[in-house]
Structure formats: structure tokens, C-alpha cells
């Protein structure tokens, strides 16, 4: 396990570093952004962006931070991280030829799969919580304040969204022999969904509607997750994991 823990730790730190690297300048930019918000709103080329800026105008720094950290950074980079963490879980061993060695040890397949799933999920979710925890401290630097509790709920919502994507990628990894095919499929799916989100007439078909600015503002303001959103996301994760277990139990190297 030491090898797996070490890899997970490095992945967690790397993702957290990138997220924080994008979060800090975004928050420090808030005062200048606030000054130009009205002008930016009038210049927004598409309605979807206009709407996002409208929400920020109404909610101030909270909307801005939620949009920057969760919608812009965590959701988009999170899809990339989910693809990169999930795709090699099993298919990576298949490509390297090490799957038979993994299966030769006296460890049950169920345990092996759950360990791999958990470690990848941790590397995906932990950076979201870690970086979210730094937000109250950072916004104080620009003379604002945000509550930690609702932010943590937003991080939880974001994690459930990313876990659903990760779980689908993980299932793909259990079925495939080449991790790059799985990663490519997840990224392509993510890009298509993001593109749909930007099209006014098709935006309601996009999965990113489950993880956009109005969603996070609602979570932040109501101090609660929306069951119409978190139940399907948890459902996708659980069903994907169960299918993964079934597929992996019969998988030959």
C-alpha cells in the first residue's frame, strides 16, 4: 500500500497546489473586479455569462468567490483531475502488464478495487476541501468575510459532482485496457457538456447546470444541499461503483 499511498499523497498535493494557485490571485483581484463588474456585465458576449455576472452583482464577494473557485476552477480542472485519477486505476495496470501481479496477491478483488477507488476519490476531493478552507482567510485580505460552514457545504456539493464523474471514469477503467481511451472519453464528455452549458438554447441539457454559480449561491445562502441535485449525483457514483465491482470480479488480466 505504501506505493499507492505515496502516489495518492502526491496527487492530492499537486491538485491542491494548482487550485490554490488559481484561487489566491482570483480573490486578491476582487476589489478591481467589483469596480468593473457593471461594465463587464454589459460587455458579456453571451447570455449565460451575463446571467453569471448578474448573480455576482447581486451576491457580491460570495458569488464571485463561488464562481471563481467552484464553477470556474474546481468544476473544469476537477473534470480533468477526475479523468486522470480514474482512468489508470485498473486500465493502467492492464496497459503496463502489472494487473496479473496485482491479482496474484492474496487480497480480494473487492478490497483491491475499493482501495483504489477510495484513494483516487480522496485525491480528487481532499484538495477541494483543503483549498476551500483557505477562502475565509484570503477574503479577509481584501476586507471581506465569508462563513466557513456554507463554504464547506459548497465544497461537499462540488465533491459529489466530481465524484460522479470520477466514478463513471473508474467504471470505464474497469472495462478498458487502455487508460488513455478512458481519459479521452471523460475529457471529451466534459468538454461537450461545458460547450452545451454556454449555448443558451441547450444550456439546460448540460450537466454543469448541477455545478454552476446559481447552484452554489443557493447552497451558500440556504446552508443546505439540494436533494434534487445531490441524490442523483450520489446515485451515479454508487451505481457506477457497484457495476465496477461486478465487472472487476470477472476481469481477466
Amino acid at each position, binding site marked *: 500500500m*505504501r506505493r499507492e499511498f505515496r502516489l495518492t499523497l502526491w496527487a492530492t498535493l499537486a491538485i491542491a497546489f494548482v487550485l490554490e494557485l488559481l484561487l489566491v490571485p482570483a480573490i486578491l483581484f476582487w476589489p478591481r473586479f467589483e469596480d468593473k463588474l457593471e461594465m463587464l456585465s454589459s460587455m458579456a458576449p453571451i447570455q449565460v455569462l451575463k446571467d453569471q455576472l448578474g448573480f455576482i452583482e447581486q451576491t457580491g464577494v460570495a458569488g464571485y468567490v463561488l464562481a471563481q473557485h467552484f464553477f470556474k476552477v474546481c468544476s473544469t480542472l476537477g473534470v480533468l483531475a477526475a479523468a486522470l485519477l480514474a482512468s489508470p486505476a485498473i486500465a493502467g495496470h492492464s496497459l503496463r*502488464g502489472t494487473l*496479473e*501481479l496485482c491479482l496474484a*496477491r*492474496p*487480497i480480494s478483488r*473487492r478490497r483491491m478495487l475499493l482501495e483504489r477507488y477510495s484513494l483516487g476519490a480522496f485525491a480528487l476531493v481532499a484538495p477541494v476541501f483543503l483549498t476551500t478552507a483557505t477562502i475565509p482567510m484570503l477574503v479577509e485580505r481584501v476586507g471581506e468575510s465569508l462563513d466557513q460552514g456554507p463554504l464547506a457545504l459548497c465544497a461537499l456539493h462540488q465533491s459529489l459532482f466530481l465524484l460522479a464523474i470520477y466514478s463513471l471514469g473508474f467504471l470505464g477503467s474497469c472495462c478498458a485496457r487502455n487508460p488513455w481511451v478512458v481519459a479521452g472519453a471523460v475529457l471529451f464528455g466534459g468538454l461537450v457538456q461545458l460547450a452545451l452549458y454556454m449555448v443558451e438554447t441547450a444550456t439546460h441539457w448540460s450537466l454543469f447546470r448541477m455545478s454552476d454559480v446559481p447552484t452554489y449561491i443557493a447552497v451558500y445562502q440556504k446552508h443546505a444541499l439540494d436533494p434534487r441535485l445531490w441524490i442523483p449525483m450520489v446515485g451515479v457514483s454508487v451505481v457506477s461503483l457497484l457495476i465496477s465491482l461486478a465487472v472487476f470480479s470477472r476481469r*481477466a488480466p
Partner: protein
Amino acid sequence: MVDSSGIVARGVTRAFGAKLALAPVDFDAKPGEITGLLGPNGSGKSTLMRCLVGITRADAGDVVIHGVRLAGDGLAVRRVAAYAPGELALFGELKAREHLEWLLRGRTREGLERAREIAKELELPLDARVRTFSHGMKRQLLFAATLGPRVPVRILDEASEGLDPQKRGALIAMLERDAREGTAILLSSHHLGEVDRACKELVCLHQGRVVYRGSAADVRARAGRRVRVVFQDERERELFAARATSLPGRTTQSVGNALVFEHDGADPRPFLGALAALRDVPAPRALEYGELSLEELYRDLYGVEAC
């Protein structure tokens, strides 16, 4: 649990799509013996070994290893059997010491210590990264991990592939020592010399079927009743074959310039007397009798020359 030690396989069958990789395969491997699993590439040896430890699920059949019936994903079986795959893909970024720990996860601490001792005995640098290892060193590392844990059954797929003769000898000596302590060992190999030296029992596969099962001693006894007569060229061989119809026994094979005769009884003298009495036949260049053993069997079973 059933009362059976070693390996007992009955009716093990596996197909990959339309291709039958294992026709129903039956065999036993007894404790205290090394059983050799022979066969050309693609004959089903690796698939059979994977089926025995549950890495590949058999479509049908029954496997009992040291009294433990193979079921589910084979975890219970892998606790009593150490398996070394033929595929040699290791984690190059790990040090050999770390890799042994990884390979022996789920085994006892004592097994790990023993594996380290074996690796040292094989002169492997445990603090070096595996990526710096040669093919043979990686093979030895895997061997050390398989021989480390004290389990009643070991299954090794081409364990000595790519090793120099000295290391090959060392590995076989370790396996022989382990077998003497009561372990049942199933060893697949393409190296007939090592199988001949180490294995008491042989199982030969061809296209997923067992084509020979018996003791190595029987093979030797059978080989002892054969005479290989070598001629100058194929024309002489054919001339001899056409005129030497009065020789006792029967011609089993024509290979290159040689004819192989199988005769009755263990005493070759009647055959050699009849051979000497032949007139108007080409004179043989060489006669080989006796210790042809596995090469002969291989040629018989698979119709190809083994070297």
C-alpha cells in the same frame, strides 16, 4: 474444505470467445514433488495456471488446492498457494526491497523476511530501483517473492525464463529443496533440461488438452526403448527405411536424416543384432540409444524438434 493436498484439477475448461483455451483438463500435483507443465506457446499453460489461482475464471471444472476448493475470486486459494506469473512487468520506480513488500502484501512478516533472504542469496541489490534491473534480475526478484511465503503450494509460470545457466541451476536447487520440505510445486517451462532434472511428474498440454500425463521416469524408460539411427542424408534414410522392413519394432519418426525406432523390451541387443545383420542398406553414421527422454517426448507429442 475437502481432504486433498497438493493440486487437484478436474475438468477445468476455459474459452476466450470461440477459441477453446482449455479443453477439460485433469491433473494432480502432489506435495513434495515438482510437477512440470510442458507445452508449446499458446498450448494453455498460463491460462491453466491462472485458472488454478482464480486470476482467470474457469468456465467449468473443479480445482482444489491444499484442501481448499477454488471459489469466488480465489482469495482462499491464493492464501495457500503462491503464484508467479509468466508476464514480467514490475514497477520500475520501486526499490527491490519495496517491491518485495508490495508483492507480499497479504502474507506474513516471516514470508517477507524469507523473500529478502532468498533475494540476498541470489545476490540481488535490494536498495536499487527495479528499473535498473536486467530481465533476469527481475525474474529472480519475482522468484524470491514466490518462494518467500511458507505456503503448501507454489505455481510458477516460466520461473527461470531468461536466466543464465548458473542462476537457473540455483533456482532449481531452491525449488528442489522446497519440494523436499513437502511443498507441491507446479512449474511450467520451455527448458526441457531443467524439467528433466527437477520434475517427477509431467503434464503436457497441446491446444488446451492434456496430451501426456505421467512420471518423468516413465518417459525415460520409454526413451530407453528407442534407437535413433542417423544417416548421411535423407536419400540414404529413405533407402534404409524401404529395405529395413525386417527390423524388430516399428519406425516411430523420420526426422531430417534420422529414423527413430521403438522396439520391445528394455534390452536393445536384439534390435542392434538385427541391424548389424542387414545387408544392402546404407550404413548409419550414428546410433543414439537411451537418454533422449523429454526431447523425444516433445517430438512425439508436438511433432517438432526441441532443443
